[in-house]
C-alpha cells in the first residue's frame, strides 16, 4: 500500500487500538521472511482430503504450503491468535497458511469465527489473493455453511478471477501484485499460477450459478457476479457466461412479460428469487457484452427488463437500451413501442426510486428523440421527448441536470454545433405538457417527501399548466445555486456552462432567438409550432393560461430569466472552493454574450485572481475556456483578450505563456480587420506595464497593475513579457497589414525622406498600429532584462525585414545606434537597472545585432547598387545583358536566402532589392516569353543543387500551369510598356524609376494602385483567420509543422516561377488582380500563414503534391537556433516535417512522462504529425482515457504504416 510514514496498513490494522501511535516502523515493516527451504523441504502432510478429486499438482501445492506452515510455526493452531495477542502485524503468508488450516476444519464454529473475524478481514488488505489459495477457498465454498464465510469466499474467488483487478494484478498470473513480497516468495517456491486454478474456479461457479434450488439463490447471485470478474478477453468463460445468462433468461423472462405495473408487487419466494437473478443476469449481459445491435435477443431481453419490479434491474435494462439506441434507435423505439406512451412502463420509471435508472431513461429518451432514423415517426419522437421533459421535474438534481444536458444537446463528448444550437432552441422554445396519467399523483406525493427544493412550484396545484422549459430549468438551477453542497454548486455551474455553449452555438449558426420576447406570450403564439412537433397532443396547449404561479409576474422573458440566473451564478463566486469558482467563471465566460458589457465579468475575474489559492492548472484551464469561447464566437476576440490580459498581469507565475500566446494569436487573427489594432494593443499592454515593484502590493485589485510580488512570479512575468515581445515582432506586420511586398504606402517613398524624424512622423500617421508596436519594441530593446532586449532586437529585425519603407529604415537606424551603443547614456534614465552588467559594447547587444544589421546593410547596398546600375544603363543607353540580369537575379536569391534566416517571408513576393527589381526582370524575361519552359530549365540549372532538387516537380507544376491560366494571366500591355520604356523608348530609365518612386503619373503606378484596391488581401486575412479558427488546440503542433514546411516549399515554387518568369508575373505579383493569377493565388496567400507558429492548417497546402521541405528552410533552422537565444523557444518549434499525414499503430503501451507526452495503448491507431529527436508528435483517432488527443510519443513505440 502506498503510505508515507513507513507503516503498512497491516500494521495499522493489527496495531493496538488504544495506542494512538502506530507501532514503530522498524519492528513491523519486514514480516518474517518465509524460509523457502523449509517450504520445499517440508514433508508433505496431507491434512485434508477433499471430497472431490483434485488435480494432483494443486493438492501437492496445498499440502506443501500447509506443511511449510507447520514447519515455520510449531504450534500450528492459533498462530493468528498468538500474533494477535502480541499485536504484531500478520504477514500475508501467515494469513494464507491460516486459511489452508481453517479450511480443513471449516465445520467447526471456532474456525469459522476465526475466519470471519480475523483471517478474511486482514486478507482483504491485500486486495487480491494468490492463486494457491484457490483450492482452500473452493473447499470452503463446498463445505462451509456459514453465510459470512461464503460471502468472503465469493469475494476472494472473484479477485482471483479478475486479472486486471483493483490492485494492479498483472495479467497472466505469476506474481499478482507488486505489493506482495511475501507472496512472491511463495510463488517462487510453489509456482501456482492462475492458469492452474481458474478453470476449476470457473467450473465451480458455473455449476453454482445454474443451481435452481430456491435456497441457493443468493449464492447463485454471488457466484454469477464473481464469474463476471473473469477477464473479458477470455472467450471461453465469456461464452459460458452467455450460456448461463440466456438459460436463466429463457426461464425467467417469459412469465415476467405477462405481468405489468408490478410496483411493490411481491410474488412468491421463487419468483422473487428469480427476479433478482434476472436482474443480475441482465447486468451481466450489459457488463460483459460488446453489445451486438444486430442481435434481437438482447433488445428483447432489455425491453422485458424495463417491466421488471427490481429497480436495479430496470436501470440496467435501460442502460442497455440507451446503449443499443445509439446504434439502432429505430429498432429500440419500435421495441419499446407502447411502453413509451403515457401510462406506459417508461412513465413508471419516472417514479422509480433509483436515480441511475432515471438517468439512463433520460439518455435513452434523448437518443431516441434525436434519431434521424425516426424522422418519419414524429409521434414516437414526441413521446420520448415528453418523457425527457418530464424528467426535468425530477426531484433529484442528478436526473434533472442530466435531462437539461440532454435537452441542450450535450449528450456525449462529441460537440456538434448544430445539435447544440438546436438544443438551445428547444430549451428556449418548447413547453412541457404533463400528460394526464394517474401516476402523476404518485409523483407529487413522492416529491413531498423529499427534502430537495423543487423547481416547479405549481406542482402541487390542482391544475397542471404546461410550462415553458426555460422557466423550469432556470428556476431549478437557481434553487440549486442556493444549495450548500459544493458538488451541487459545481454541477449547476457546469450545467450553466453547457447552456452557454449551446447558446453560443445557436448564435454562431445565426439562429436568432429573441430573448426579449415574453415567454408566455410566445408560448401562446407557438401553438402551431408545437402542433407540428407534437401531433399527438395538440389540444394540450389550449388549456394554457399565462402562468402567474411562478410569482415572477407575466413579464418573463428569456433575457430576464437569464439575467436573474446569472445574478445567482455570480454570487456563487463567493464559494470558498476554488473548483466551484472556476466552474462558475467558466460558466460566466460562456454565458457572456458578445453584445453585453463585460465589465462585471472582468472585475469578478480580476478580484478572483488576486486570491493566491488558485492552482495553476485551474487557471490554465480557464484560459483554454477563453480560447474555446473565442472559437465559438469570434466576435468576442477583443473582450476575451482583455480578460486574458488580466490573467497575464495578475497571475503571471501561474499561467503558461504558451497557452496565453495561443490565445493571443487566435484572437488577433479572429478579431477581423477592424479589431486587429485593438487586439494587438490588448496584447502589448503587458509591455506597457510598469515593472513589478518589490514590496508594493497595494492596489492589487487594479487590473493594470502587475502583481508579481515573489521572485518566482517575477520571473514568470519576465517570461511572459518575452513571449509578448516575440509575439509582437511576429505579428505586428499582420496586425498592421503592412508588408513590404504589399505595402499600402507607395513603394520607395521612403527613399525620398531620409530624415528620421519626419520619417517617424509620417510612418506613425500612416500606420499607427505598426508605429505603436515599434515604439514598444524599441523601448523593450532598451529597458528590459537582457533576455527581453535580445528578443526585442530580433523582433525588430523581423519587422524591419517584413515592413516596407519607411519603417525598415527607421528600424535600421535604431538597430544601428543600438549596436553602436553610443546613445546608451541618453537612454539611461529609462533604463531600470536590475543590477546586471549591461555588457561590454554599449547596450550589450552589439554582437547579437551585427548579423541582423548585416542583412539590412546588404539589402540596402544591393539596392544602391541596383540603382547605380540602372543609372549607368540609362546614361549609356544600353540594354541590360543577360549576364547582368543573371547577376542581379543571383543577388536577389542570395538576399532572399539571407533574409529567410531571420524570419519567414514569402519568397515569391519578397523583393530584397526593392520594388524596382521587377522592372528589370520583366525585361530579362521578355526574350524568353515564347519558350518559358525552356528558360525555366536553364535557370533552374543555374541555381544551386539544392534548389535543383525541386526542379522536377516544379516543372510538372509549371507546365500544367503555364498551359492554361498563365498566358492569360499576363498583362502583356504592361510588360511591353515597361520593356519598351526601358529599351526602345530612349527615355532614361532613371527618370522612370524616379517618377515611379515619386509616385508620379506613369501608367504603372496607376495600374498598381488601382489593383492594390482590388487585391484580395482581405480575403487573404479571412482565409487565414478561417483556417485558424478551425484548428483546435490539439492541432496546434500540427499547425506549426505544416505552417513551417509546406508554405515554404510553396514559397520556393512561387519563387522559381516569379523569378524565372518574372516578367510575366510582374503584373500579377505587383498588381495582382485575383483573376490574373489564377489558381496559384490562394496557395501563395496561404503561404503567408508562416508568419506565426500557430495558424494555418491550410487545406490547400495539404493538397499540394510535393511535400518537400526546402533546403533554405533547413539552413534557416540551423542558423536561427543559436541566434534565437533562450527566450524564443517558439522558433524551435517550427520543425520541418513532411506535409502528408502519416499513420501508424502503437506497438506498446506507453505512459506519458510529461504534459506534452501522450499515453498510448498498444494497438491504437495514430496519425503521425511530426518527428522530433526520436519523438513522434501523434494524434489519436479518439481521445484517450485521460482525454488527450495528441502529444509526443517515442518513435520506437510506433510502427509506421
Amino acid at each position: 500500500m502506498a503510505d508515507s510514514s513507513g507503516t503498512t496498513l497491516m500494521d495499522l490494522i493489527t496495531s493496538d487500538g488504544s495506542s494512538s501511535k502506530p507501532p514503530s516502523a522498524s519492528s513491523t515493516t519486514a514480516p518474517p521472511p518465509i524460509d523457502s527451504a523449509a517450504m520445499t523441504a517440508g514433508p508433505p502432510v496431507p491434512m485434508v482430503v477433499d471430497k472431490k478429486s483434485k488435480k494432483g499438482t494443486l493438492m501437492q501445492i496445498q499440502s506443501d504450503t500447509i506443511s511449510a506452515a507447520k514447519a515455520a510455526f510449531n504450534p500450528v493452531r492459533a498462530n493468528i491468535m498468538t500474533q494477535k495477542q502480541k499485536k504484531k502485524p500478520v504477514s500475508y503468508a501467515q494469513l494464507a497458511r491460516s486459511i489452508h488450516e481453517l479450511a480443513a476444519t471449516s465445520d467447526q464454529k471456532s474456525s469459522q469465527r476465526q475466519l470471519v473475524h480475523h483471517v478474511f478481514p486482514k486478507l482483504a488488505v491485500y486486495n487480491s489473493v494468490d492463486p494457491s489459495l484457490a483450492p482452500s477457498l473452493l473447499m470452503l465454498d463446498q463445505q462451509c455453511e456459514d453465510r459470512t464465510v461464503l460471502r468472503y469466499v465469493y469475494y476472494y474467488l472473484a479477485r482471483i478471477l479478475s486479472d486486471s483487478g483493483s490492485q494492479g494484478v498483472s495479467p497472466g498470473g505469476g506474481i499478482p501484485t507488486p505489493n506482495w513480497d511475501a507472496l512472491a516468495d511463495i510463488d517462487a517456491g510453489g509456482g501456482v499460477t492462475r492458469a492452474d486454478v481458474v478453470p476449476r474456479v470457473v467450473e465451480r461457479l458455473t455449476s453454482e450459478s445454474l443451481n435452481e434450488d430456491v435456497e441457493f439463490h443468493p449464492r447463485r447471485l454471488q457466484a454469477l457476479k464473481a464469474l463476471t470478474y473473469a477477464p473479458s478477453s477470455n472467450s471461453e468463460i465469456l461464452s459460458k457466461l452467455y450460456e448461463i445468462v440466456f438459460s436463466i433468461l429463457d426461464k425467467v423472462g417469459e412469465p415476467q412479460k405477462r405481468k405489468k405495473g408490478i410496483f411493490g408487487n411481491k410474488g412468491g419466494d421463487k419468483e422473487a428469487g428469480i427476479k433478482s437473478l434476472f436482474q443480475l443476469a441482465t447486468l451481466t449481459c450489459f457488463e460483459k457484452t460488446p453489445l451486438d445491435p444486430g442481435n434481437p435477443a438482447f433488445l428483447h431481453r432489455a425491453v422485458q427488463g424495463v417491466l421488471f419490479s427490481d429497480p436495479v434491474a430496470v436501470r440496467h435494462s435501460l442502460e442497455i437500451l440507451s446503449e443499443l439506441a445509439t446504434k439502432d434507435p429505430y429498432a429500440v423505439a419500435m421495441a419499446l413501442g407502447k411502453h413509451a406512451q403515457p401510462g406506459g412502463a417508461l412513465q413508471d420509471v419516472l417514479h422509480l426510486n433509483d436515480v441511475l435508472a432515471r438517468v439512463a431513461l433520460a439518455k435513452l429518451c434523448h437518443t431516441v428523440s434525436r434519431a434521424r432514423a425516426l424522422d418519419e415517426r414524429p409521434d414516437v419522437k414526441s413521446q420520448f421527448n415528453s418523457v425527457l421533459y418530464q424528467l426535468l421535474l425530477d426531484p433529484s438534481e442528478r436526473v434533472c441536470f442530466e435531462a437539461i444536458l440532454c435537452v441542450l444537446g450535450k449528450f456525449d463528448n462529441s460537440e456538434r454545433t448544430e445539435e447544440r444550437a438546436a438544443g438551445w432552441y428547444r430549451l428556449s422554445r418548447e413547453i412541457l405538457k404533463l400528460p394526464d396519467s394517474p401516476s402523476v399523483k404518485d409523483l407529487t406525493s413522492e416529491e413531498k417527501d423529499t427534502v430537495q427544493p423543487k423547481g416547479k412550484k405549481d406542482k402541487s396545484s390542482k391544475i397542471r399548466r404546461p410550462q415553458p422549459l426555460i422557466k423550469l430549468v432556470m428556476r431549478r438551477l437557481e434553487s440549486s445555486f442556493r444549495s450548500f453542497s459544493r458538488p451541487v454548486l459545481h454541477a449547476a455551474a457546469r450545467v450553466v456552462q453547457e447552456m452557454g455553449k449551446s447558446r453560443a452555438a445557436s448564435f454562431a449558426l445565426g439562429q436568432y432567438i429573441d430573448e426579449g420576447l415574453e415567454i408566455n406570450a410566445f408560448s401562446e403564439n407557438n401553438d402551431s409550432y408545437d402542433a407540428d412537433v407534437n401531433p399527438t397532443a395538440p389540444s394540450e396547449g389550449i388549456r394554457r393560461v399565462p402562468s402567474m404561479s411562478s410569482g415572477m409576474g407575466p413579464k418573463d422573458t428569456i433575457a430576464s430569466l437569464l439575467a436573474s440566473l446569472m445574478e445567482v451564478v455570480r454570487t456563487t463566486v463567493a464559494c470558498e472552493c476554488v473548483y466551484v469558482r472556476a466552474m462558475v467563471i467558466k460558466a460566466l465566460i460562456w454565458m457572456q454574450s458578445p453584445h453585453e458589457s463585460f465589465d462585471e465579468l472582468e472585475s469578478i475575474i480580476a478580484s478572483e485572481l488576486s486570491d493566491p489559492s488558485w492552482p495553476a492548472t485551474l487557471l490554465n484551464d480557464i484560459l483554454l475556456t477563453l480560447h474555446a469561447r473565442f472559437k465559438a464566437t469570434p466576435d468576442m476576440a477583443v473582450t476575451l483578450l482583455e480578460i486574458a490580459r488580466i490573467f497575464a498581469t495578475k497571475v503571471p507565475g501561474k499561467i503558461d505563456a504558451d497557452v496565453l500566446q495561443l490565445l493571443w494569436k487566435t484572437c488577433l487573427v479572429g478579431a477581423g480587420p477592424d479589431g486587429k489594432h485593438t487586439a494587438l494593443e490588448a496584447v502589448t499592454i503587458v509591455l506597457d506595464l510598469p515593472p513589478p515593484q518589490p514590496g508594493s502590493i497595494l492596489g492589487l485589485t487594479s487590473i493594470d497593475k502587475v502583481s508579481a510580488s515573489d521572485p518566482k512570479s517575477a520571473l514568470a512575468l519576465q517570461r511572459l513579457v518575452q513571449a509578448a515581445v516575440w509575439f509582437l515582432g511576429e505579428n505586428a506586420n499582420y496586425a498592421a497589414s503592412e508588408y513590404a511586398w504589399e505595402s499600402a504606402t507607395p513603394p520607395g517613398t521612403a527613399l525620398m525622406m531620409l530624415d528620421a524624424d519626419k520619417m517617424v512622423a509620417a510612418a506613425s500617421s500612416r500606420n499607427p498600429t505598426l508605429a505603436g508596436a515599434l515604439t514598444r519594441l524599441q523601448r523593450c530593446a532598451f529597458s528590459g532584462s537582457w533576455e527581453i532586449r535580445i528578443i526585442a532586437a530580433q523582433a525588430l529585425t523581423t519587422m524591419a525585414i517584413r515592413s516596407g519603407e519607411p519603417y525598415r529604415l527607421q528600424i535600421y537606424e535604431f538597430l544601428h545606434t543600438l549596436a553602436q551603443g553610443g546613445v546608451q547614456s541618453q537612454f539611461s534614465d529609462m533604463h531600470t537597472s536590475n543590477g546586471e552588467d549591461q555588457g561590454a559594447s554599449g547596450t550589450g547587444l552589439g554582437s547579437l545585432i551585427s548579423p541582423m544589421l548585416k542583412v539590412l546593410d546588404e539589402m540596402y547596398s544591393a539596392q544602391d547598387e541596383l540603382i547605380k546600375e540602372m543609372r549607368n544603363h540609362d546614361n549609356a543607353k544600353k540594354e541590360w545583358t543577360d549576364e547582368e540580369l543573371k547577376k542581379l537575379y543571383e543577388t536577389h536569391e542570395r538576399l532572399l536566402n539571407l533574409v529567410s534566416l531571420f524570419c519567414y517571408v514569402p519568397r515569391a513576393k519578397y523583393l530584397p532589392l526593392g520594388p524596382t527589381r521587377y522592372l528589370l526582370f520583366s525585361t530579362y524575361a521578355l526574350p524568353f516569353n515564347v519558350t518559358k519552359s525552356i528558360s525555366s530549365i536553364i535557370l533552374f540549372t543555374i541555381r544551386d543543387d539544392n534548389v535543383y532538387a525541386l526542379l522536377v516537380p516544379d516543372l510538372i507544376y509549371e507546365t500544367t500551369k503555364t498551359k492554361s491560366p498563365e498566358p492569360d494571366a499576363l498583362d502583356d500591355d504592361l510588360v511591353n510598356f515597361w520593356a519598351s520604356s526601358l529599351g526602345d523608348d530612349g527615355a532614361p530609365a532613371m527618370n522612370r524609376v524616379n517618377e515611379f518612386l515619386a509616385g508620379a503619373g506613369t501608367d504603372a503606378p496607376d495600374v498598381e494602385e488601382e489593383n492594390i484596391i482590388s487585391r484580395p488581401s482581405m480575403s487573404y486575412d479571412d482565409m487565414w483567420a478561417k483556417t485558424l479558427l478551425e484548428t483546435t488546440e490539439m492541432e496546434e503542433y500540427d499547425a506549426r509543422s505544416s505552417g513551417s514546411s509546406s508554405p515554404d516549399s510553396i514559397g520556393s515554387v512561387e519563387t522559381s516561377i516569379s523569378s524565372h518568369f518574372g516578367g510575366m508575373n510582374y503584373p500579377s505579383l505587383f498588381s495582382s488582380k485575383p483573376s490574373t493569377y489564377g489558381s496559384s493565388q490562394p496557395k501563395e496567400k496561404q503561404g503567408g500563414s508562416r508568419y506565426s507558429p500557430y495558424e494555418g492548417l491550410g487545406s490547400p497546402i495539404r493538397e499540394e503534391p510535393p511535400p518537400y521541405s526546402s533546403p533554405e528552410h533547413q539552413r534557416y533552422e540551423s542558423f536561427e537556433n543559436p541566434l534565437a537565444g533562450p527566450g524564443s523557444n517558439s522558433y524551435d518549434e517550427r520543425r520541418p516535417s513532411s506535409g502528408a499525414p502519416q499513420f501508424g499503430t502503437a506497438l506498446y503501451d506507453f505512459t506519458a512522462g510529461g504534459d506534452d507526452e501522450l499515453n498510448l495503448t498498444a494497438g491504437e491507431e495514430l496519425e503521425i504529425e511530426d518527428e522530433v529527436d526520436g519523438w513522434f508528435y501523434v494524434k489519436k483517432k479518439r481521445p484517450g482515457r485521460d482525454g488527450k488527443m495528441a502529444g509526443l510519443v517515442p518513435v520506437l513505440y510506433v510502427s509506421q504504416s
Partner: protein
Amino acid sequence: MLLAVLIANSEGNILVERFNGVPAEERLHWRSFLVKLGADNLRGVKNEELLVANHKSVYIVYTVLGDVSIFVVGKDEYDELACKCLIQLLLLYRPCNNNTMTVLLNALKDVCGKPPTERLFLDKYGKICLCLDEIVWKGLLENTDKDRIKRLIRLKPPTEF
C-alpha cells in the same frame, strides 16, 4: 466510470482503495494527488461536508468522516453528483435518493455504527470491503439501497420475500 474510491486516514495513509480502469502506473499519481487534495482542503472541515474538485473531465468528491477521509473519483456519467451520492451512501444520510457518495458514507456509518474512528474502521475492515464490493461493481455503481447492501453482505437475497 467510477475511476477510484479511496479511503485514507488522517495522516494520509491509504486504508482502502479501489481503482477501476486506471492503469497501474497512474494510480500512484492519483493516490498522491488525492491525499494532497485532502491534506490541503480537509483541515477543519465538518464531518460529511462534501468538497468537490475536478481535473480535466474527471470529477472528485471527497469528505471527511471521523478519522477517515473518503475520496471518490468519477468521470463521464459519474459526475460530481453521482460521486456525491456514493459518499452519502457511505455516510448513511437518508435513504439515498439522489447521490453516489452517499452510498459509501452510508455504508461506512452503517457498518461502523457511528462516525468511525480509525480503529473502528480497521476493526470492520473486512465488512467494509464486502460492502464496497456490493456498491461498486467493476466501476459502476450497483447497489445503492442500504438494506439491500446489508442483505447482500450477509449472503441473503437482495429483497425480502
